C-alpha cells in the first residue's frame, strides 16, 4: 500500500487544552500525562461513512418533529463543511442538538426550572451535499444557568458533531450567536487561547438565507483538518 498522507495537526493555540480550570468539569477529567504522538496510519485516515438510507430527510427541520410548532424565534442555520485547504467535505454526517427557546434541554439531567416544549426535541442531522453544504431549520436556543461558578450562564449555542472523511477529522463543537453579551464570561467558549479561533465559533447573521416573514438566517462554516501536503515520512 502506498505511503499514507496524514491529516494536519492544529496550529498552536487554536484548539483547547484538556485542562482549563475555569471550566470545572475539566479538572478531574483532563489527562495529566503528555499525549503520545501518533503518526497517522490507515486506521486514522479512514473513518466511518453514513449512507443516505440511514438519514431521515425530515431530521434537518427541528421545528417539524411534532404535531405543533415549537415556541421561540424560528431560524435557519446553514453553512459549509470545508477542510483547511478550502475543499468542500461532501456527503458527511452533521448532527446538532440544543436547548429549547427557554434554555431547557430535553434530558433527565437538566434540572433548570424552565419549561419543556412538547413540540421541540432539539436534535437533528443531515448529510452535507456535494459542495459540503448543510442547512437546518430550528429555533434560537435560550441561554441557561449552570453550576460551574456563581451566577454562571451559558450563552445561547447549538452543539455540532461532524465526522469528515477520516477518524482523524472527527470534530464536536458549539456554534454561538453574534452579539451575545454572555460570551466574554463563558469558560467553555473561552477555553481556546487564540482569539480568532474563538471568534470563528460565532455564527454570522445572514440576510441571504433569511426568509421574509418566516425565519432569520445564521451562517456557520465548519473547517476540518486538511490533508498534509506530503506523505508521512517512512519510519526506518
Amino acid at each position, binding site marked *: 500500500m502506498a505511503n499514507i498522507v496524514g491529516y*494536519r495537526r492544529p496550529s498552536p493555540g487554536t484548539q483547547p487544552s484538556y485542562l482549563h480550570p475555569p471550566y470545572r*468539569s475539566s479538572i*478531574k477529567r483532563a489527562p495529566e500525562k503528555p499525549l503520545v504522538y501518533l503518526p497517522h496510519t490507515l486506521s486514522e485516515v479512514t473513518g466511518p461513512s453514513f449512507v443516505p438510507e440511514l438519514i431521515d430527510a425530515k431530521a434537518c427541520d427541528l421545528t417539524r418533529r411534532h404535531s405543533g410548532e415549537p415556541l421561540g424565534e424560528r431560524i435557519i442555520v446553514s453553512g459549509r463543511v470545508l477542510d483547511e485547504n478550502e475543499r468542500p467535505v461532501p456527503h458527511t454526517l452533521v448532527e446538532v442538538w440544543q436547548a429549547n427557546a427557554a434554555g431547557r434541554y430535553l434530558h433527565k*439531567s437538566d434540572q433548570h426550572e424552565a419549561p419543556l416544549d412538547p413540540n421541540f426535541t432539539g*436534535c437533528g442531522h443531515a448529510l452535507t451535499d456535494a459542495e459540503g453544504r448543510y442547512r437546518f431549520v430550528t429555533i434560537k436556543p435560550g441561554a441557561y444557568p449552570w453550576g460551574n461558578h456563581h451566577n454562571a450562564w451559558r450563552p445561547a449555542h447549538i452543539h455540532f458533531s461532524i465526522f469528515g472523511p477520516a477518524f482523524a477529522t472527527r*470534530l464536536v463543537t458549539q456554534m454561538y450567536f453574534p452579539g451575545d453579551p454572555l460570551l466574554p464570561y463563558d469558560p467553555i467558549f473561552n477555553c481556546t487561547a487564540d482569539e480568532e479561533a474563538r471568534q470563528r465559533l460565532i455564527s454570522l447573521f445572514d440576510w441571504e438565507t433569511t426568509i421574509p416573514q418566516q425565519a432569520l438566517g445564521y451562517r456557520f462554516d465548519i473547517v*476540518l483538518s486538511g490533508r498534509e501536503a506530503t506523505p508521512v515520512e517512512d519510519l526506518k
Partner: protein
Amino acid sequence: MSRQATTSQTVGPFFSIGFDWLAPDDLTAPGVSGERVIIEGRVLDGDGQPVPDATLEIWQANSHGKYAHPEDTQGKPLEKGFTGYGRIPTDDQGKFRFTTIKPGQVPGPSTGSEKKFQAPHIAVAVFARGLLRRLVTRIYFPDDPANATDFVLNLVEPARRGTLIAKKISAARNTLEWNVILQGPDETVFFDC
C-alpha cells in the same frame, strides 16, 4: 493552507439528545465473519469516580483487516453489514459494553520494501462532559503475538502499554475488559492524533 480547523468544544452533559438516534453497540450483523468478542469496562475520572456522561466511538477493520473506506485499497474482501463503526454511551455507573469481531491486521507504515502490519486494534474516541476535545486511544487484544512488534504500541513506554490491551475476563462468552482512566497514575494512554 488557507483556513484553520474549527475549535473543538465539549459535547457537554446532554449529547444523548443528538447521538441517541445512531448508537450501534453490536457490530456483528448476520453473515459477518470473525471471532465475536464482547468488550466492556468503565470510564473513570482522576478520583476514580465513574463518568456517567461519556460516550465512546469506535472504528475498526473487519476480520480480514479491511476498512470499509475508499482509501483502503487492499485487495481484501469487504463484508456487507459490517460498517466498522460503533457509538456506545456510558451508563449511570460509568460502564459501557459493546459486541464486535476481532479485526484483522491492517498495514502500518512501510519500512523500505518490507510490508509491516499492525496488531489487531480498535481505534477509540472518547467524548464526555469536561473534555474540551475528544481523547483518542486504542484497544488491543490480549495474547496476540503481533502486539510485540506493533508500531503504535512501541511508541508507548513499556510500563503504560498495558492500558491499551484488553484483559480476558470470561472465556466462555469471550468477554474482554478494557477501561478508560482519564487521569492519575494508571491513566490510559491517549494519543495526539
